């Protein structure tokens, strides 16, 4: 068995580039791998050659599964960067295995009855290699997708204060929001009751409105409603002489901004949950 396996390994290694070229020609025109059609041929051949050379390394390695990672991870990273869909990347691997087998058959490697008998074992070996590689490539692709989503959500996740300070994020959020709303009450009273003006201090209210929507999604709108009601009530009490219109517009804007951000955050949370 070992002799036969060595014979096959030698054949694959010595002809790695030739088989890779056949595979490249196949994958670059196959219906199920359309994304490969426009890739640089050299790059495709190089991936094929790496795969066929892996066969010997895996046969010699103590832990063939770990050895397969040297190929699988690079393959997944290269093709993920080239925006090749996962199912096409997997089908390209299937074609790699098929081309290897076709080449061995074409070379008349399995002529005698004994060789045919041994071929079953050899076929199992190539299948095992493929099984490892396809599993690792799929896993890596998913890791890369999650990594890319997490990078894009990075800034928002920081603002969301997830798992902050020993997992007590929600307590700190409530505490911080209470402080913000109290400061808003004080500012409103100071500007409306003491200074008697509706000057631009209300722009500062967008800080708690936005944070509340980021932290609690749609429920965060209650902070915006609270602040809207606050300026309208305060206006009614302390600024009777001034027109109401400006503060009505401000209150509507608070609720609108809070609502839109809360809605967007629900979507982002769904994306995050999906990738987790």
């Amino acid at each position, binding site marked *: 068995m070992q002799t036969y396996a060595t014979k096959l390994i030698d054949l694959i290694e010595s002809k790695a580039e030739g088989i890779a070229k056949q595979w490249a020609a196949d994958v670059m025109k196959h219906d*199920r791998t359309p994304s490969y059609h426009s890739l640089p041929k050299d790059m495709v051949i190089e991936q094929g050659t790496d795969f066929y050379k892996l066969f010997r390394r895996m046969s010699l390695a103590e832990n063939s599964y770990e050895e397969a990672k040297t190929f699988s991870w690079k393959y997944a990273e290269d093709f993920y960067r080239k925006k090749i*869909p*996962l*199912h096409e990347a*997997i*089908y390209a691997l*299937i074609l790699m295995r*098929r081309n290897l*087998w076709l080449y061995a058959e074409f070379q008349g490697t*399995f002529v005698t*009855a004994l060789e*045919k*008998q041994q*071929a*079953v074992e050899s*076929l*199992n070996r190539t*299948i095992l290699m493929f*099984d490892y590689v*396809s*599993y690792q490539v*799929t*896993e890596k692709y*998913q890791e890369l*997708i999650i990594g890319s989503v997490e990078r894009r959500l990075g800034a928002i996740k920081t603002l969301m204060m997830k798992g902050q300070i020993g997992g007590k994020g929600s307590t700190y959020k409530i505490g911080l929001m209470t402080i913000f709303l109290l400061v808003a009450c004080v500012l409103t009273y100071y500007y409306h009751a003491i200074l008697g003006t509706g000057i631009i201090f209300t722009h500062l209210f967008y800080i708690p409105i936005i944070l509340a929507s980021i932290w609690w999604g749609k429920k965060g709108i209650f902070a915006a409603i609270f602040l809207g009601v606050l300026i309208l009530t305060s206006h009614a009490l302390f600024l009777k002489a001034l027109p109401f219109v400006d503060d009505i517009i401000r209150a509507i804007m608070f609720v609108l901004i809070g609502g839109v951000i809360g*809605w*967007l955050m*629900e*979507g982002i949370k*769904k*994306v995050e949950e*999906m990738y987790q």
Partner: protein
Amino acid sequence: MKAFTTKLVDLTQKNSETIARQWAKDVKTNAKTYTYHEASEDKIILQAKDFYSNFQMMFFHESPYEQAEEIFEKYAEERYREGTPLHEALYALILMRRHMWLYAEFQAMFNAEVEHRQAVGSLSRTILMFDYIIYVVARKFWKLMKLELLAIKNTQ
């Protein structure tokens, strides 16, 4: 060749319960199929039995690829909805194929010299069917992931 091929798939079909149980035992302890560890054994045995039954149908179909699309897109959708990661769903399929083969070997199906010769052809056919299934399942997962992202974008 046809007779031999039939023999392998018939053996699997006749003993689908036993093979499914062996597969379930494997998948529930295998480090590469972590999601299956907590799954109900009866449920996954049924899943495997259905799979082998569908596999037989596909194996003898005139257009196995079209048949794979018809049957296994649904299979992929079910795994996706259950929250099984794609690499685990694919590895579970790989183990299904492996258990088919292991059972046949255990039953000493390939003892005779002539059968050994024919086994290469039969194994190749089985692998081809699994290649189709793996491709269809991976493609369906990819589509579902894209659809979900699109739906989220639309709600925004």
